[in-house]
């Protein structure tokens, strides 16, 4: 019917076998995938909300002293609110090292 040589038929079958395997793997991956939770925001219990925290709460975090707490509150008053914890890096005195140290004590809501 199609005048393929045996070698051509082998090539076609090889190509199709790759395709079939690909479809099966893709389907299995989709079937067995689970919704990957990146963050559970309920896990913030015990953490401090950057958008509502007062000076006393901020000072209670290891790595934040009086002066830095004032600067954080000043920044929050100026900008309205924090949208991301990384916004803290824009405050004078919060280096990458300090940010890594304090970020786990904070959350944003």
């Amino acid at each position, binding site marked *: *019917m199609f005048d393929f040589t045996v070698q051509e038929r082998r090539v076609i079958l090889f190509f199709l076998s790759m395709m*079939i395997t690909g479809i099966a793997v*893709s389907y299995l991956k989709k079937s067995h995938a689970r919704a990957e939770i990146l963050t559970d925001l309920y896990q913030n219990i015990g953490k401090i909300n950057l958008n509502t925290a007062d000076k006393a709460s901020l000072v209670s975090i290891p790595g934040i002293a009086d002066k830095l707490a004032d600067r954080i509150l000043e920044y929050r008053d100026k900008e309205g609110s924090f949208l991301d914890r990384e916004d803290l890096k824009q405050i004078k005195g919060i280096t990458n090292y300090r940010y890594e140290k304090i970020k786990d004590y904070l959350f944003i809501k």
Partner: protein
Amino acid sequence: MKRPLVWFISCFSLGICLANHLSIGFFWLQLFVLLFFILCLWNIKRRIIFDGFLCILIFFIGALLLRNSQKLSPNHISCYSRYSYKQFSMVKGMVNSLPIFKNSRTSFLFKTEEAQFNNLKFCSYGDILVYLKGNVNLGYGQELTLGGNLYRRRFLLNQDRYLVMNARIIKLYPENKGLILKRLAFYLKKKIENIIFKYLAATPAAILDAMVLGERRTLSPLINNAMIKTGTVHILVVSGFNTSLVALIIISLLKLFRVSRRASFYIAAFLLIIYCLMTGVSSPVVRATVMAIVFMGAYLLKREVDIYNSCAIAAGFILAGNPRQLFNIGFQLSFISVLSIVYLYPRLKIFFKPELIKIKPARFLMEGFLVSLSAWLGTLGPIVCYFKIFSPITVIANIFIVPLASLITLSGFTLVLTAIFCPAIAPLFASTNELLVVLLLNINAFLLKIPGASFNL
């Protein structure tokens, strides 16, 4: 048999249809695929039996591919919407299309990366259609966090999109995550649009924008409806017709500059891909782009060009990416019109014998009539079925409007090129363009006035 690809794609498409209408599970389809694969292997040396089993195998692969495309991973954004339906949700990702401002809102496709519902943040993927209030200045690739309500919309299903979000921007990120090629395409599109609207009056600019770039947001609904009634609306969307014109312009220009055949093939193929991206990667444009590249490749390799085989390659290319495109009216009309012209035109030519007409313009008109008639006969069924409109005037309208539309598109591209390289003479080309557009609208209006031009069913 000269056209195995045509057979393969036909079997593949039939398989997709079967899977769409019957509820056979993936497991059973996979079992059939394996069975026929083994039978093919078993009979590899028996020509006819092998070919028969191969067709059945490809048929089931088509069905299997559709089932796979219907299966969504739990990380797909539409799966989350089951429990976030009509609830405030937040999604992070990037703008995946050129934002369009229409009806006092900005719309675009949004590629999601993270989704947040009910205090849980998930990893997600998949595109959603986003509407923002007002004219928001955003670009392709812009990273954003959006907040709003997610809704399901059925009309988006065949395009691999499921959800719509009426959103507001929560956060804008400075990064641009878009693909360089797509960014280049959208940059060029914006540049061309600016030129069109700078040099032409509003109506001709809107028509040229639709014809050259496929943008119909500024097109008056009155013009659109008038073109639908005469069956010439296909010139107002970017289709194979436009792509072939673009290919023709590129190749002619490259020939003019004495660029070698091989180099002009690569340049033309690259520019056609850019044009395809610029116009929104719709089925007719992808078909025409693939067919044009196959044609040029065949010319370069000095191989015989077969339009049926190149059509099959284009269809395979589109369906392998998204098998649900088979049920898209744009895909169907695009392939049906090309195939009906290729199949019916030579037969009608034998019947009507236009070569016997001695006067050249009359012969040209007769040939145009036969091409138009072939396309009309082929697409009559789907058009009546989908649009509930029967327009006998289409056959005559296309004879006059298609050559005029080609001229407008060509002069449109000339206007763009002159506006870039020699802006001083661009207004002259703009005037010609406006004249041609006015002529097109008047011819269309005249044809529409003929009694029995079109019937609403």
